[in-house]
């Protein structure tokens, strides 16, 4: 991030709560971070509030969820007070989101090419032919071998890895500044996962985008991202440079790392995580 320029995203003291029959559930409590043109990993176990954070940035927290923050700004523009029309200009165009499973996130009755072209035409005033050409270029950019053929395939005709590349193509084609990727590769096989990450890595780096990579996989995130936010119970436990993860100080981060079985370092029994109520500030 260049000095003096406003960061891509500023989040200050974000709270997300749900009023339910059994009381108030606080999904996120007082989360703050800024994002530059970097790869930021958000790591946590289920229920840590990591996915809700991604949704809150796009104001997509479903009712009865209630979002409050001291500041939520994209390039200095306040997202909390922006009207719906303004928000639609942000979603997809400036900040887009890649979801976990292409099987459920693609429209099953529309060819993958038409879906990508639709995403482009929604934000750019171009004709069908131009959008088609742009889509085929984009499919090639995500390393799909025969983009002209794949354009006319339906989601059920493509593999999981290819489906996820289609999703990435769809999210990148409006040329957003920020991509929020929520477990983008968790449904994929490990080798395919690495190939998809390589594509995401190249595109994010070449186009100078900011990436928020939400994942449960601490080891993967540490090898992929620049900086990691470790979340637990809706709070940030610590922020670490990915490279320095091994020297992380917070007991939760250390506990999460320790309980993973290691290929290089066999252990008879895995250390289990001892949760401390003090982490939640109670």
């Amino acid at each position, binding site marked *: 991030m260049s000095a003096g320029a406003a960061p891509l995203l500023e989040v200050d003291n974000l709270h997300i709560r749900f009023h339910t029959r059994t009381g108030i559930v606080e999904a996120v409590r007082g989360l703050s971070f800024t994002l530059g043109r970097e790869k930021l990993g958000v790591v946590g*176990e289920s229920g840590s509030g990591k996915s809700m954070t991604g949704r809150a940035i796009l104001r997509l927290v479903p009712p009865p969820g209630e979002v409050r923050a001291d500041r939520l700004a994209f390039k200095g523009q306040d997202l909390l007070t922006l009207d719906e029309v303004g928000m639609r200009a942000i979603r997809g165009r400036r900040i887009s989101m890649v979801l976990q499973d292409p099987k459920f996130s693609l429209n099953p009755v529309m060819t993958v090419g038409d879906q990508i072209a639709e995403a482009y035409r929604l934000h750019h005033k171009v004709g069908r032919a131009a959008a088609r050409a742009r889509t085929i270029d984009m499919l090639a950019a995500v390393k799909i071998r025969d983009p002209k053929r794949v354009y006319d395939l339906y989601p059920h005709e493509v593999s999981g890895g290819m489906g996820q590349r289609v999703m990435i193509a769809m999210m990148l084609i409006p040329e957003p500044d920020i991509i929020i990727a929520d477990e983008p590769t968790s449904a994929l096989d*490990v080798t395919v996962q*690495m190939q998809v990450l390589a594509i995401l*890595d190249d595109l994010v780096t070449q186009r100078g985008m900011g990436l928020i990579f939400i994942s449960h996989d601490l080891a993967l995130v540490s*090898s*992929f991202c620049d900086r990691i936010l470790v979340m637990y119970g809706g709070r940030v436990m610590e922020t670490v440079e990915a490279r320095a993860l091994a020297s992380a100080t917070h007991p939760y981060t250390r506990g999460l790392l320790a309980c993973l079985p290691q290929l290089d370092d066999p252990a008879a029994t895995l*250390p*289990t995580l001892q949760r401390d109520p003090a982490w939640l500030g109670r």
Partner: protein
Amino acid sequence: MSAIHVDGLDVRFGETHAVRAASFVVAEGESFGIVGESGSGKSTVLRALAGLNPDWTGRMEVLGTAQGRQRPRSFYAAVQMVFQDPFGSLHPRQTVDRALAEPLAIHGLADAEARIERVLAEVQLGPGFRFRYPHQLSGGQRQRVAIARALILEPRILLLDEPTSALDVSIQAEVLNLLAELRLRLGLTFVLVSHNLAVVAHMCERIAVMNAGRIVEELTTASLRAGTPREAYTRQLLLASRGYDRAAAAQFRTFD
């Protein structure tokens, strides 16, 4: 006598040749791992072993007895299975007590009361869990119930199909520790299927690597840890399991 002897196992689903001439032997008390990516046929091997998939050809011997398509009741008393998804494998409207009592009723075993209490203690769930419904349990607790249900018939072989891949890593550690401890204490034989090399290496002494329906290689955990597999496919899988590496990802290819 080996616990499991599979020779030339073939499974077809219509046009799809899911398992192609798979052969392996598991000694009694051993923990044997099967790794592979999705569609490699690893779960199909396990399901065929468990008798859940009757359409197979080849030879299959379990505890010295040749197995056919239909399995006698005594087979299920000796061989039990734990499934991947603890949210799908427990009946939502049955209490833990009912889920555990059912295998006992089927096999006509007496003293259900004592057996249920004992098996719950074995999976480290207190008696307070006995009359709960699955929705009142966390994912880790449900998987413990699924393990208890498998153990209640006092089997000698446990077939484990991705037993921890639906769980958070901290819960995974607890469940893996429990399984390892049970195996040691009860002298069980394990066949563990997983896509996660580190989990299989942690739990097993010997590992079969599957790709496109074939066992491409069988190797010891020591050889896997040392990074000296024979097959290029296994080496690639190992490399991919070590985290993201831009240069390595560029060289990955498809094996079939």
